[in-house]
Structures are given as structure tokens and as C-alpha cells.
């Protein structure tokens, strides 16, 4: 593997690409965010800027869709979501190229993950942390990125986990342009898909069952050319799981019925055991579709904890990295079985 030095002075928590993959942002326990630009001539990453972003470890960040400008959101153990905008006139590596747009300070515990919704859903982001609450913020007016409103607040966990226990939280939005807004939130060992009901309130539309330990990472595949969705999870129980999510109109026989107004708290941990879920049974055109979840692949090839999963741009290749010191690439065959197509060793010989 070809390395480049980030210059972070502590643990790197997250690495995210911009929409076109020409910039990458990293965040670290050293409280800094760094943005690297891909030099087209040399094909190497060059530091564009680095700045102190929070007063505690920065653990998650994300780029907004380029439809809304060059914006980064970051979350930290200091319980804050910070939004940053690039100032193209400022010099590179000056530490002033990214200016803070605003701070969102509703969380009552350290934050773990932040993700912008795909561009077609407007400028909005979701954040989750140790208080077990998913918060969705929306820009009041895309031309004024300093004003954000807390659009939804959903208690994913009935109570925050004990502080002495290990915890993990992550979320991912459904990237499909042709599927109603939904996002997957993972809190500890729970993976819940939220969809909006007719009143625009998020409810648990389905659960991804089977995780027996902390979910470390989750990735929703871009569904280019597919009529179903694929979601991958990386779990501390050593499994890489791939779930297939099918949307159907109206309630199917095998669908779990969930009252649209039910308290999300009640849903957590109340698993139906069938691994499937559904939305409201109202068949009107406004009704969100029912969701059918199937576990299509479960692999323990990493022989240990799996730390990350991520799909490629078109959702045809999944990568997973784990405690065996290897990166595995997975691809579906013609018969729709996921097979490991390549193994990249990350261990020095």
C-alpha cells in the first residue's frame, strides 16, 4: 500500500471523501480536521488545510452534496455538531480556509456520527451520539447556511448506555434518488431503518436483525440499476452482514405491522424475530412503502471484529476491514450471492 502522512497527532477516527472523490477530510482525537486535495498531476494527496475544529476528539464528519456548496459537518465528544464552509479565497494550509458556519448543540452526550442526507432530499443532516437520540437538522434556507433547525428528534435508545461500557453509534442515509427518504441508525447492537410517516414524523420502518454485539460501521449501497437496496454492517461479533431491503406497496403477509405513531422507544429491542418490518398499512399513494428486509450474506471471514464496511460509488463492490489485518472486497455473482473477490493484506511481512 502506498502511504501518505496525515500529520494528525492522535488517533484518526474518520476519513470521508467529497462527492467526486477529489478531496478527502480526516478527523482525529487531536481535535483537528484536515482536508486533502488530490493533485491531478502526481495523483497524490496534498494537504489543503488543517484546523482545530472542536474542544474534544473529532469522531465523525461528512461532506454535503456539492449542490449546496463546499460544506463539512463534524461531530465530537464535546457534544457539538459544527458546520464548516470552504473559503476559496483563503490560502491553502493557512488554517483559515474553512470557516465555521454554525454550531448545533442539542446533544446531551458525546456525538459519534454525522451524515448529510443525499442532495435530492435537500440540505439536511442526521447526527447521533451517546445520548441515544437521533437528531435531524435542516437548513432553513439553503442560501443562508448559518440557520439550521432541528427537524426531528428521535430517541433510538430508551436510555443512554452506561458510561463505563463500550458503545458505538453510526448512521447512513438511503442514497437512492428514486426511493422515499429513509435512514439507517445503528445504536449499540440495534440497526433501525427510519422512514417518514404521512405527517413527516420518522418511525421505525424495519430492523436489521441478527447483530449480537456492537455495530461498528454501516454503509448503504448506492442502488444504481437495482430495484432493491443493499445495506452492509460491520459488527464486533465478527460478521460482515449484507441486508437486502425491498419496498412493496401495501402490507404484505410476512410484514411486521408497526403503528406509524408508535413511540420509537418501544420499537427498540422489541424485535419481531422475522427480520422484517413494514410501515403504515394505509394503501394511499402518500403512504410510505412497506419494507421487507432479508439477510442475503453473513460472513465471518475476518475471524475477528469487523471495523468498517464501505461500498463503491455504484454499489457493486463492498469492502470490509477487520481484525485479521485484511481488507476484503465482496461482489455479488450472477446468482446474487456475495463472494469475496479479493483480499488485500494490510500487514507488514
Amino acid at each position: 500500500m502506498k502511504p501518505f502522512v496525515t500529520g494528525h497527532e492522535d488517533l484518526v477516527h474518520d476519513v470521508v471523501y467529497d462527492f467526486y472523490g477529489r478531496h478527502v477530510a480526516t478527523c482525529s482525537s487531536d481535535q483537528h480536521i484536515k482536508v486533502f486535495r488530490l493533485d491531478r498531476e502526481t495523483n497524490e494527496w496534498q494537504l489543503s488545510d488543517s484546523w482545530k475544529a472542536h474542544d474534544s476528539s473529532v469522531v465523525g464528519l461528512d461532506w454535503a452534496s456539492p449542490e449546496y456548496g463546499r460544506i463539512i459537518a463534524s461531530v465530537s465528544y464535546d457534544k457539538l455538531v459544527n458546520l464548516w464552509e470552504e473559503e476559496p479565497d483563503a490560502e491553502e494550509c493557512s488554517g483559515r480556509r474553512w470557516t465555521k458556519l454554525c454550531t448545533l448543540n442539542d446533544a446531551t452526550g458525546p456525538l459519534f456520527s454525522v451524515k448529510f442526507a443525499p442532495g435530492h432530499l435537500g440540505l439536511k443532516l442526521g447526527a447521533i451520539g451517546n445520548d441515544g437520540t437521533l437528531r435531524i437538522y435542516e437548513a432553513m434556507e439553503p442560501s443562508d447556511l448559518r440557520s439550521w433547525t432541528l427537524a426531528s428528534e428521535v430517541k433510538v435508545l430508551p436510555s443512554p448506555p452506561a458510561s463505563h461500557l463500550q458503545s458505538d453509534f453510526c448512521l447512513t442515509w438511503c442514497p437512492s434518488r428514486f426511493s422515499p427518504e429513509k435512514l439507517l441508525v445503528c445504536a449499540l447492537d440495534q440497526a433501525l431503518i427510519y422512514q417518514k410517516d404521512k405527517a413527516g414524523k420518522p418511525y421505525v420502518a424495519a430492523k436489521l436483525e441478527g447483530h449480537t454485539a456492537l455495530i461498528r460501521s454501516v454503509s448503504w449501497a448506492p442502488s444504481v440499476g437495482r430495484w432493491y437496496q443493499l445495506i452492509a454492517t460491520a459488527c464486533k461479533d465478527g460478521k460482515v452482514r449484507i441486508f437486502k431491503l425491498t419496498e412493496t406497496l401495501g402490507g404484505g403477509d410476512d410484514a411486521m405491522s408497526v403503528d406509524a405513531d408508535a413511540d420509537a422507544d418501544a420499537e427498540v429491542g422489541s424485535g419481531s424475530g422475522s427480520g422484517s418490518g413494514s410501515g403504515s398499512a394505509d394503501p394511499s399513494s402518500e403512504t410510505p412503502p412497506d419494507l421487507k428486509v432479508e439477510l442475503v450474506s453473513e460472513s465471518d471471514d475476518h475471524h475477528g471484529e469487523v471495523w468498517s464496511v464501505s461500498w463503491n460509488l455504484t454499489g457493486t463492490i463492498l469492502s470490509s476491514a477487520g481484525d485479521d489485518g485484511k481488507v476484503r472486497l465482496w461482489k455479488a455473482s450472477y446468482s446474487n450471492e456475495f463472494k469475496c473477490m479479493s483480499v488485500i493484506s494490510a500487514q507488514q511481512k
Partner: protein
Amino acid sequence: EQPIKEPLSSFRTEGKALQFRMGPVLSHSLGFVSGKCQDASESKLYTPKFHSIDTSENYKQYIMTCFEIYKNLGEDRFFSVPTMGLVNHSAPMEHSQAVNIAIEAMADELEVFSGTQRPARAAELEECLAIINCTKALHFADGSENEEANPTVLTHLTQWINRADGEPSEEAVAEAFKDSCPYKSPLFWRLVNQLLLRGLFEQAIGVLERSHLLKDIENTCEVTFNVLNDAISLIKQYPFELGEVFREWKAAALQISQFFVDSATNIDPELRDFVSDMVLLISGTQSKILQYSRTWYESFCGLMLFYIPTLELTEEYLQISLKAHPLDVCNNWEQACVNVIQGKLYAVLPILESLDYCTAVFYSAICEAKGLLENSSTLAIHANGSEGLEGDLFSSNNSMACYLMHEFALELCCYEDKNLWSVGIGILALSPSDNDSAKRLAIAELLPHYPFQNNDDIEWLLTLCAKWRLPDVAKTIYRILGNKVLYENNVIEAMTNFSKAGEF
């Protein structure tokens, strides 16, 4: 350099974690270790080298040319057997010829591309070429529907085995000629017969002439001299055009061999046996063909050349050959070529895919156009049966070629190369799947990610939005453009783009 430097056990106990992010551009994906590092220089991101991703210009050119070849097939991309309406009798033949030209062109391109590569990669591509050449010989010969094989079958057959396994080597030739009287050595006759079995007739005659055998026996044994001269003349006139001419040629060969067997000679008995073997071989004696061939494909080629050259007997020849000379399982191409000869083209695709994805894709597409890949409806049971009303790009309702093409098209969009992007979109548009709505949705999801750089690129994007009726995607593109130019302080143009996006 690798991210994990310590043994895995201590890596884990230190609480470190290996993470990996796939970038929008696959080759720029990054791996990193989350963990306490001693100093800033230890905090690194790592770009892996993907074996399956070739970003070289030569490969891009190869992909583009293969696509052009496929695109130029036009309506011949589809295989159909007209059963009603006005049936044009010459149409199947014209279609066949068009597809044959396509596979020929693809093989030529692969040959050129292989020549630009390093030995290890070139070896993989040569294996692909062997498979294509074998398919070309057996399934892409003009008029192959005829009972009799035609000239291109044998020409392509010999081209296939001689390219796939370039024997005899120079060392073997040198070894055969190391004695002053080479024709007394069995090595010499092995060489001559091997050349004959491989259809290398000029070389075989050259070897015979270089040995001075004819000159040496001219005055000692008239019978052998005449038989050899006749045999050489016969080889020179080998009728690649086959049919009735081959039957006459074979009758002459049999006559010569019979004459030699019946005649008394004045040469060394061992030499007589060698000459006799050669004459029997060209007259199509199976035992001699099997005896002198070293591999199953030499036997196969020998039987096709000298026994009865017809595609109807290929399966029989193959079994005889494999019984005498088992295939080398270490060579990917040998197993694949056996499958090709048996008509099991589906079995070849995974082998080709493991060697070169692009080749596998266009090979399958052209084979499907030729009608060699059976219809998907006769294939394996559709998974779960819940396909939705329309299916999608990866539905098992589509053919295998469609599946490979769609996957490849999406893979090309992870290269950040504008030309490959247009090939990717082109493949989606031209693939034999008639599910236009799935194609449209896929293109709609893909287009905003197109790595545009200049106005021509944007024009291309917007043309596609118009062609595929994607107004919302066009608005997204205008918004992206608006923001881009706004960051470049071009406020007027930004406003124009925002207004086109319907922002005002």
C-alpha cells in the same frame, strides 16, 4: 509499506482497528489504522494497489476499442431467428459474418494490447487470446452451419494452438539438427511430425529440406525418394478449402502411404519406419497422430487436419485427444478451450473474468450476438422468484452477457475517466436488455457523479439528461455547476445556473 507493522495479536491488544473507505474513484480508496500513534509521522493513510484495476492508457484504449467494435455491430448485436413474416434467407449469413468480423477484430485488439503489457499481465492476456482464438475457430467460422468445415476453421485452429503454445522451440529445432545426419534421429521426425500436426506445413517442408534427406537417398532408394517428394507436394497442396477437394487429397495421401507400405526400400529399416510414420500421419492414421502429438490440442488439431475435417466430430476428437494426452489443469486456457470445444461457453466466462474483465464482457456480448449463449430463461432457476414487475439491470431475467455488461459499465464509472464514463453509459444504452426504465434510472443515479471539467463535458451531461428525459437530474447538475462557479467568484454565471435549476 503496510499499515499494520506489529504482529496481529499485539495490534488487537493495543486497541487499534483497521479501517477502509472506498472512494468514488476506486483506485483512490484509502485504508488507515485507528489507534494511538507515537508521533505525527505514524498517522498515515494508505492507498492500496488493486490487482483488478488497470488505469493505464493502453487498457483504457483497449476498452474503448472493444466498445467501438461492439457498437459497430449495430442491430447485429441481437441474435434472433426469424420465424414469421418475410424471412430473408441471406440475413442469417450476413449477421453471422458481421459477428465473425467483430470477434476477429476483438482478438486483434487483444493481441495488440497484450504486446504492450509486462510479462505477467501479458501471460494472462495471452490466455484470454487463446480462449478467443479457440472460440473463433470452432464457433465463428463462416458457414459453420454447413456440414463440411470451411477453410477458416482449420486456419483459425492452427493459429489458435500455435499462438497459445508456441512450440516447437528453437532449442527443440537445434536439438533435432545437432547430428550430421539429423534424419536418423527420432527427435528429427518428432519435430517434422509436430510441425505437420500444428499445420505448420512450410516449416515442416523446410525442416525436411534442411536435413538433406532427399539428396542423400536420391541415388540409394528411388521408392523412398519418390514417396517423400510426393508427400511434400501433397503437403504443399493441403486443401484448406476442404470439401470434395479434401476427399481427393486424402485419397492421394492414402495411396502414397499404402504404396510405401507395400514397396520394398533400400534404406535403413529405422528410417523407413520414420518415413512410414510421417506418411501415415498425413494420411490421417489416428494412432500415428496420437503417437506424435505431445498435447491434447496437437492431437485435436492433427485429427481435424488429417482425419476428417468437420466440426461435427470435434467432440469425438476431443475425447480421443484427452484420453491420450490429459489437459494441463495449471493452464486456465486449456480447461476453457475444452469447454469451448464442447460448446459450454458459460463455463468459460468465469475463467475469462478472472483473467480480464473487459475481455470477458465483450466476449460474452459477441457470443450472445452469435447466438452461442443460450437464452437466460433456460438458465438456472430465478432466485426467490420475487423480481418485481420489471426486474433491474442485474436481474436474472437478463442474459449473462447483459449482467456482465451492466456490471462492467458501472465499474467504468469508478475510474474518473471521462472516456470510460461515456463507454459505461454507452454500454448501458446498447446492452441487449430491453428494460429501458431500469437503464434510465441507473443513468439518472450515475450522471451527477460524472467528473466534468469543461463546457463540453457539461453539454454531454445535459444532452444525456434530455435524451433520457431526466429533468430533475439536469436541475441537480445546474445546482452543482452554480455552486462551483460561485466559488470561482463568477456570480453572474452562478445565478444563470441557479435559475436554470429553478432556484429563482
